């Protein structure tokens, strides 16, 4: 149920799978559709940065919790790669669902977040979406966003980073209810492209908002 049901592009996408469990990596590789080419795998922070530098994939499927490095996990991989000037996009995968971890990896620059119980078709669609530059929000991530920014908060100016616009709140709410982007578009009488724009705007706010409450909020909450 973790979002995104409609595929976007039919083109091939190259990925690197980063997870410290070999069983999960092999399961994920077999789940990915034929339109996705797995260039490499990694199990630790250092390995991940090296493999991503070597293969330069379009998308990295990144576990939030990883051994190695300075203990920063997935977020550290993203920081390491952005410092080296890589233009790879990241999709965070997690089993923990703790708000702290999710917010950390999104703020580090991941373009989306899904839980590990996601189905093969859904993960394939999510990878295509990330590759085409869109953001991928699971219902749970949308719930985090609404919890962090407040459901009633409405910005008077759209460019304001600390609040969601009325439309963005509506979109997040529908995604939290388990709607796909297409269903959100239909329910709000807007195009799928507009939904994607709203979701990307929310992602940007989540990444750039200077609200210290956001981090504190995440630290206080350990959602199951």
């Amino acid at each position, binding site marked *: *149920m973790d979002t995104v049901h409609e595929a976007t592009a039919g083109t091939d996408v190259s990925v690197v799978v980063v997870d410290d469990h070999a069983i999960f990596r092999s399961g994920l590789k077999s789940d990915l559709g034929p339109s996705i080419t797995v260039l490499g795998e990694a199990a630790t922070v250092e390995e991940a940065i090296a493999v991503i530098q070597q293969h330069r994939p379009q998308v990295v499927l990144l576990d939030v919790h990883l051994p190695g490095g300075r203990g920063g996990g997935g977020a550290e991989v993203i920081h390491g790669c952005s410092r080296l000037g890589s233009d790879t996009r990241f999709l965070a995968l997690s089993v923990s669902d703790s708000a702290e971890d999710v917010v950390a990896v999104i703020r580090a620059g991941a373009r989306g977040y899904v839980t590990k*119980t996601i189905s093969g078709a859904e993960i394939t669609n999510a990878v295509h979406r990330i590759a085409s530059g869109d953001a991928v929000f699971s*219902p*749970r991530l*949308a*719930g985090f966003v*609404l*919890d962090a920014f407040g*459901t*009633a908060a409405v910005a008077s100016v759209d460019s304001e980073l600390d609040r969601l616009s009325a439309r963005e709140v509506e979109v997040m*709410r529908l995604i*939290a*209810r*388990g*709607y796909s982007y297409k*269903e959100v578009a239909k*329910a709000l009488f807007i195009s799928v492209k507009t939904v994607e724009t709203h979701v990307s705007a929310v992602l940007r706010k989540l990444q750039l908002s200077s609200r210290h409450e956001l981090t504190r909020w995440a630290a206080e909450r*350990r*959602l*199951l």
Partner: protein
Amino acid sequence: MVLLTFASGAGAILYAWLWIFVPSAMDRAAGVRVRSGPARFINEHPARRAGRKEFLVGAGMLLLAAAFAAQQLGLPVQWGTLLPLGVVAAGAALAWAQLDDVRRAGLMDRAGAHRASGLARLLVGLVLVIIGVLVMVSGSIPWSLTWATLAATAAVLGGVGLVLAPWGLKFWRDLEVERAGRVREAARAEFAAHLHDSVLQTLALIQNRATSESDVIRLARAQERELRQWLYSDQADQAGTLAERIRAFAAEVEDAYGSSVTVVAVGDAPLTPGNEALAQAAREAMLNAAKHARVPVSVYLELGPRGSEVFVRDRGSGFDEAAVPPDRLGIRESIHGRLSRHGGSASIRSGPDGTEVTLSMPEHPSRDRGESNGHGS
């Protein structure tokens, strides 16, 4: 220094100290850093501890030199007192050198000797104990004898204590380490026992029933839930809230029908009668979805200033609410009726791509708010 050289070798000792510890020109050529003066020599010395040791040795030698000088100048120097004192100091230094920095710091910390007040308390305590003992002893023995005995006892005790203290400390530390290890071991054993009772049993069950997909999914979900609850047990204090109630119902439905039910909650609220009715209605909606649609169900709970809202959504084949026979009470009574009695409302939207049940409960339930079973957008 030239003056001191005359003073019977006192200057020679000082020279020796300087020769050992002040970096030479060769040092400077080969050294990592240029040392321009005494202050820099202190600051840039690789290990500050080593620097301190040099200072102690230097200070001792200076004292010795001063004593020599005083003797040369005709002042009476009591070698009989100074020499034993020096020997005691050297012995204590040797014994204490066995303890590394960390242990010494730990000891100082525990005694509170770092803070002035802690040190004062320690000293006052010692003095009081000694006075107490003195008063007790002085009753039976004449004062002069008491003093002599006391001095001898103090000397012996002090000497033995100084030498044995490091050994005692070492044993104490080892004991502490061992105790910490036992605590860790106990925690690990508890962990292992829990994993054995839960995860391993479930894995065994899954292997036995590998042919039945629904059984495997149900077992895995139940185990996952149980393990999460155990790992994050601080969540338990949230029991009695609406979100917790709905999560518990979701777990129950999962166990009963094997479809996964994901709950996303934004905000939380205490379990008022209205919210209890909302949770019960949500349970009914989840049950319907799991029973008839047999697909994953997502539940979204939002609590805002306007009240509580619950959305239960499945991607099943949908159903026509009007076509449900009137004698089936599930939706009419358990969802609509229950909510309207508490001032809430429900709407059901169903189509070929799934069903969504919307349940809402306003913050201040009003009786005049009628039952709404219109089709939401």
